[in-house]
Every structure is written in structure tokens, then in C-alpha cells.
């Protein structure tokens, strides 16, 4: 029996292309024509080490603060029922897909020098200069993005708490503190290493935030330096060296993720607990309320602030302007093919992985490792920041005479590949489950290929809908590769927004932000409801 069946060959080819392009773009970084001296010169420059140490330091601080806030907030959200709780949780799930630039704009509008907070404080006679541009601004934005992400993952970990343990805690009369200490904390603790690594990696390779709020070379990171080396200095050896440095650090972090993160298994005994019998007290109520209020005060204003221009004439003017609709068209022209490409790659991964799961079920030998490896190889993308991948592709295409002109295709490819880990995370568990449950039935009834897909569609469409929504929105809001390849002819909404923020046209920027969010919501609704069906999850 051959290892691969001919039925999965097309999917295997897609995976092979995906891996080959990845390896080729990384290889291109190493093969840049440069003499040893220039590498050493670049490496020995104190500037590089300052960049590296600042990148690490801001990522570390951002991660610690995000998780530090997320832990008590998760506990509060697990215990307290209040009006708007579900809305808040949905807002948290959206944090992953809200275009970075939109949130940055919201932060600037609230915390900027002439922002609402400063104006309010001046109004009550308090003179405070909020140092938004620099480390403080970067931390503020990173916590704004990553704290909700941490809360979401922590809440997911806590759903693994067996119902009987919670019942036990009610029977033993645990107080609010004891439920946290003896039940929630051990479960949260298990997922902390992976959350730490994930957020650290996201912050370490953060681009748009540092570019917008860094405020200058003092607060710059490797990712921004790569962009500057390519876009402004056109120093290819320097860009490739910085990219290699970036990949090296990310790989090291990723190694720790997979080496030291314990697997968190789903408990099958889960049942929903309808009544929370935890002993309550005034002190715990006050503490919980304070935590919640702080979180709301931090998270909500930037979102609310960007919607205020929606009621002005400027909004209509901006909406009717030609550049706006050109940017909308470019954004959609990038996002839809990117989503399609991402789904093709993801389904190819799923097809091959399912084939090996099926093989494990019927044969003595376990092929699960191969299915897991395939799943992880999709995740490996997280080690290679989008800008680095784009740089590699640029270096590949440059000798062929195809560089910035070929930008559109590079953007579509990189966006598709960068959203892959998120899409795989949504799609694979559902598809794996189908294979495990119905493998024998499929084999006995000879249900394969398209017939199998049609049969499964009602069961998997919710996941496909959610995966599509992630893919299209992440691509639509991307402000990574487009910054490198973008031009006046290739100006997407996020890039247009970046230019407006950069020229302090905040009100007009807010209009674009509202438009961008509107398009995101429409596409999100379309994907989850039309592709996902009525059982769509959010």
C-alpha cells in the first residue's frame, strides 16, 4: 500500500507549492549577494542591538501587562452576569479581526495629545501630557489588542473545567476567591505558556502599531527596520539580515511554544452549569466591579470615538470621494482572492491530514503524528512575519525583473498564507471529528470526494463560514505587506487610513475607519450567515 492515495495528490501538490514558496522565500533571504564584511558591519552596529533589545522589551512588557489584566477579567466574566456581557464577549472576539489601523486611530483620538482624554483632563484643570508616541503608545495599543485575545483563550481553557468540579466546589462551599484559586487558576495556568508565547510573538513582530505609534527610531522594532531598509534605503542586504534575525528570534520563541506547552485536552464530560452557587460577598462584588469598570473604560472609548464622525458632513464628503472607492475596490480585490486561496490551502491540509487519520484508524500503525505535523506546519507561518515573507518573495522576484509591479500577487499570497493558522484552527477540529466518527461508514458506503463534501456540508459549514470570515477580514484589514508594496495605484483602505493618520487628518481617517469596519461587518455577516448557515458560530 502506497503512503499516499491518488485521491489526495492534488491536495498534496497544493501543500508542496505552499511549502516550496515558503522555503524559497526564506532561502532568498540567505542567498542575498553580500560580502562577509557587510554582514559583520550590520551585525556589529549598536543600532541593530538596540532594535533587537527594544523589540524584545516592548514585546515582553506588552505580554505581561495583557495577561496580567486578562486573568482577573476572565474570572469576572466567568462569574458575573450583567447586561451587555454577551456584547462585550463578542467585542473581544472581534479584537482579533478589527483592522489594526482602526484601533490605532481610536487610541489616538482618545489618548492623543489633543485627544478626548487630554481635553477632558484640561477641562477639569489637570495638565497631563500623555506620551502616546513611543513605548507607552505601543504598550497601550498592544494591550488593547492582546488583552481581549488573552481573555478569549483563558475563557476557552476554563470551559474545560469539568462540570463535576464546579459542583464539587459548590458543595464544599468555596468562596469566590477559592473557586479562582483551586479551580480556575489551575486551568488558566495550563494555557499561560502558550498565551505568553503567542502574544509575545504577535507583539515582537508587530508592525502597524510600531510604525504608527513608535514615534521615531528610539522606539523602533526589527519589523519596522526591515520595512525602512527596503522601502526607504533600498538596502537589500540589511533587510535580509534583519529578516533572518527576526525569523531566528521568532523560531526560538516558537520552539519554546511547542517544546514546553502542555497539550490541553477537551474533556468529554462537559455539561453546562446553569446555576452558579459560588458564595458571594460584598468585597468580591466590589473587586469584580472595579476590574470590569477598568476594562470597559480602557476598551470601549476608542471604539466609540471613531464612530462620532459618522454623523458629520465630512463623512458624506469622504464617502463620495473617488480615492475612497478606489481604496475599497483595491481592498476587496485583495481580500476575496486571498480568502479563496487561503481556503484552498486549508482544505488541502485538511484533506491530506484526514487521509492519514483514516489510515491510522484502519491500520496498526499510527499516522496521527503526520496529521499533527501537517497542522503544525500551517502554524509555522507564525514564525515568519508577513513582512519577512514578503521581503523573501521580493528578493525572489527581483532578479526576474518582477518586483513592486508584481506587488498585488505577493500581497494576495502573503495575506492568504498569514491567515492560514487562524483558518486551520477553526477548520481542522471539525473536519478531524468527521473523519474519526464516520470513517468506517464512509469506507463501507464508498463515500468519497465531492459526495463526501456534500454530505458533510451541513455539519461543517458553520466552521467554513467562520474560517472564511477570519480569512477575508484579516486580509481586508492587513497593514503589513501592503505598506511595502502599496502605491498610489495600489492603495488599500488600511494604507489610505495610515496615510491620513500620518498627515494628522484624523477626522477624515475616522470616516475611512468607519467605512472599513462597515465593510468588515458586511463581509463577516455574509460569510457567517450565507456560508456558515444558521448554526454559524461567532
Amino acid at each position: 500500500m502506497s503512503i499516499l492515495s491518488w485521491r489526495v495528490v492534488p491536495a498534496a501538490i497544493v501543500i508542496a507549492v505552499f511549502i516550496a514558496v515558503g522555503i524559497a522565500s526564506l532561502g532568498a533571504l540567505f542567498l542575498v549577494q553580500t560580502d562577509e564584511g557587510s554582514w559583520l558591519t550590520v551585525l556589529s552596529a549598536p543600532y541593530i542591538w538596540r532594535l533587537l533589545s527594544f523589540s524584545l522589551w516592548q514585546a515582553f512588557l506588552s505580554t505581561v501587562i495583557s495577561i496580567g489584566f486578562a486573568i482577573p477579567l476572565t474570572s469576572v466574566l466567568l462569574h458575573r452576569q450583567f447586561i451587555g456581557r454577551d456584547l462585550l464577549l463578542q467585542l473581544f472576539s472581534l479584537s482579533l479581526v478589527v483592522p489594526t489601523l482602526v484601533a490605532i486611530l481610536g487610541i489616538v483620538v482618545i489618548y492623543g495629545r489633543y485627544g478626548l482624554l487630554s481635553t477632558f483632563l484640561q477641562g477639569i484643570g489637570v495638565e497631563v501630557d500623555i506620551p502616546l508616541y513611543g513605548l507607552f503608545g505601543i504598550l497601550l495599543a498592544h494591550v488593547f489588542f492582546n488583552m481581549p485575545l488573552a481573555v478569549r483563550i483563558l475563557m476557552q481553557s476554563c470551559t474545560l473545567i469539568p462540570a463535576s468540579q464546579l459542583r464539587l466546589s459548590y458543595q464544599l462551599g468555596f468562596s469566590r476567591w477559592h473557586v479562582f484559586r483551586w479551580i480556575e487558576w489551575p486551568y488558566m495556568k495550563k494555557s499561560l505558556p502558550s498565551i505568553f508565547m503567542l502574544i509575545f510573538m504577535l507583539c515582537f513582530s508587530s508592525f502597524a502599531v510600531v510604525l504608527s505609534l513608535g514615534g521615531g527610531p528610539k522606539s523602533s522594532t526589527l519589523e519596522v527596520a526591515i520595512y525602512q531598509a527596503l522601502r526607504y534605503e533600498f538596502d537589500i542586504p540589511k533587510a535580509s539580515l534583519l529578516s533572518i534575525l527576526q525569523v531566528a528570534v521568532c523560531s526560538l520563541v516558537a520552539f519554546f511554544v511547542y517544546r514546553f506547552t502542555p497539550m490541553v485536552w477537551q474533556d468529554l464530560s462537559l455539561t453546562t452549569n446553569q446555576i452558579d452557587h459560588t458564595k458571594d460577598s460584598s468585597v468580591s462584588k466590589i473587586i469584580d466591579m472595579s476590574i470590569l469598570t477598568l476594562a470597559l473604560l480602557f476598551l470601549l472609548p476608542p471604539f466609540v470615538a471613531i464612530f462620532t464622525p459618522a454623523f458629520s458632513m465630512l463623512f458624506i464628503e469622504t464617502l463620495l470621494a473617488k480615492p475612497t472607492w478606489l481604496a475599497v475596490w483595491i481592498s476587496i480585490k485583495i481580500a476575496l482572492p486571498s480568502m479563496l486561496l487561503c481556503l484552498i490551502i486549508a482544505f488541502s491540509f485538511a484533506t491530506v491530514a484526514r487521509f492519514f487519520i483514516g489510515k491510522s484508524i484502519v491500520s496498526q500503525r499510527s499516522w496521527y503524528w503526520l496529521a499533527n505535523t501537517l497542522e503544525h506546519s500551517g502554524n509555522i507561518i507564525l514564525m515568519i512575519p508577513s513582512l519577512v515573507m514578503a521581503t523573501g518573495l521580493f528578493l525572489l522576484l527581483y532578479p526576474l525583473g518582477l518586483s513592486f509591479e508584481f506587488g498585488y500577487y505577493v500581497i494576495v499570497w502573503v495575506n492568504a498564507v498569514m491567515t492560514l493558522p487562524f483558518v486551520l484552527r477553526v477548520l481542522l477540529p471539525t473536519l478531524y471529528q468527521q473523519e474519526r466518527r464516520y470513517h468506517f461508514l464512509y469506507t463501507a458506503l464508498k463515500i468519497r470526494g465531492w459526495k463526501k463534501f456534500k454530505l458533510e456540508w451541513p455539519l461543517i459549514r458553520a466552521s467554513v463560514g467562520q474560517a472564511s470570515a477570519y480569512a477575508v477580514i484579516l486580509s481586508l484589514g492587513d497593514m503589513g505587506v501592503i505598506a511595502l508594496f502599496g502605491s498610489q495605484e495600489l492603495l488599500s483602505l488600511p494604507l489610505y487610513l495610515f496615510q491620513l493618520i500620518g498627515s494628522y487628518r484624523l477626522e477624515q481617517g475616522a470616516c475611512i475607519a468607519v467605512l472599513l469596519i462597515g465593510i468588515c461587518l458586511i463581509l463577516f455577516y455574509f460569510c457567517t450567515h450565507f456560508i456558515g448557515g444558521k448554526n454559524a458560530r461567532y
Partner: protein
Amino acid sequence: MLDIDLHYSWQQKGGVHTNVFRSHYKAHIGEGLTSILGKSGEGKSTLLTLLGGFVQGRGSIQYYGRELIKLAPDERPVTNLFQQDNLFPQLTVWQNIAIGLSNSLRLTDAQMQTVNWALERTKLTAYANSKPDELSGGQAQRVAIARAISRAAVGDSSSKKSILLLDEPFSALDPKLRMDMMLLVKELTQQLSLTTLLVSHFPDEVKTIGGQFLLIEGGSVVLQDSVELLSAENIPVALHTYLK
């Protein structure tokens, strides 16, 4: 004496239809061991969940004249043993028992002695410092029993947790070990004067351990008698239907 007169209804989702399952449990349960028999889905575990206070039923649960229905789970004189996850994996065996007496694990001398006594009674003294994942299935369930008896042993008559509810906690064990555990429960029930309710799917094992039994069908107690009836030649129709 445990007097139950409880109503509870819930929605059962099956395909496109949603049925409302209505239960009404009425029984007078004496001290000692009472096994709960019945087919799957008839409402055996629901009865224990109601008695534990994890879901709120209507009616009355009286234990020696004391009304329990309005009490929170921790205020009831009850200890539940579930099918699984009865232990906190991050705590040692000793701590898992102690947490039943003090949530902060700050124990008085008397409470410490009770924990040690419970360890001895369940033959777990050698495992006091082990973590649950180092134990076998039977040992892990013995720890849960040790916690239950330590709760039943301390305090005055109103604070003692002398109702023990076992929802198939030994179902994952092999038949020999399961029997050993049931005999241990029987012995402790007699020695500590507990009121123990044990859900079982094995009428033969129930015959061996003796005591009373309740037969549950469609959310109601349709029969209550001594387990000797299970071996009798002429048995009621409901029991016959269940046993065939």
C-alpha cells in the same frame, strides 16, 4: 430519614422535536444503603443532582424533619461522588481530603486528625502526599470516599454531611474492584450511620451489598423495597420489565 417529594421538569432536545420531561420523585429513605436502579435516561442522576442542590426542584426534601430544599449545595448535609473528576488534580491526596473540611486548607488539630483517620479507613495513608495522577482509578475513588467520610465525621448533628450520594463513581473500575469499593461504602455507611444513595446498573452487585433499592422509571420512583426482592420468584411488573 430522608423524605423526598420533588418535582422537576426539563427540556429534552431530540432531532427537530423538543419534549418536556417531567419528573416527580416521592420516597421515604431510611438510614443505610439504598441503591437506585433504572434504565438509562429515566432520571436516576437527576434525582441525585436535585438532592445535591445543583439544580432547583420544587417540593420538599426533609432530612430528619429539617427542610433542605431552599439550602445552597454547601449548606446541605450532602456529599456527592460523581462518575469522574471528584479530585483536584493539583492537590495531594491529603489536601484533596482536607479541602472538604476547610477551603483554605488551614485545618484545626481535630480536623487534621479526621483527615488522617479517613486516610486510614480507606487504606490511603501511604499515598497521602501523592497527586491524583499517580493513583489508580480505584485509589482515586477511595480518596473521594475519604473526603466524604471525613465530612460526615466532623461537626455536630446539624453540620455533619451524613447523606452520601454516589452517581456511578465506580463504573469505570473492573468488576472485582467495583465490588470491593461498594463493600467499603456499605461498611462505612453502617459504621458512620450514613444515608447513602448509590446509582447502579448492576442488579447482581446490588443484591450482594444488600440494603434497600429504588426503581426509577420516567422520572418517578415506581418501586421501593429491600434488595431481597431482586432475588424473589414473584416480582412486580415494573421490576420484571427492568430486569428482563
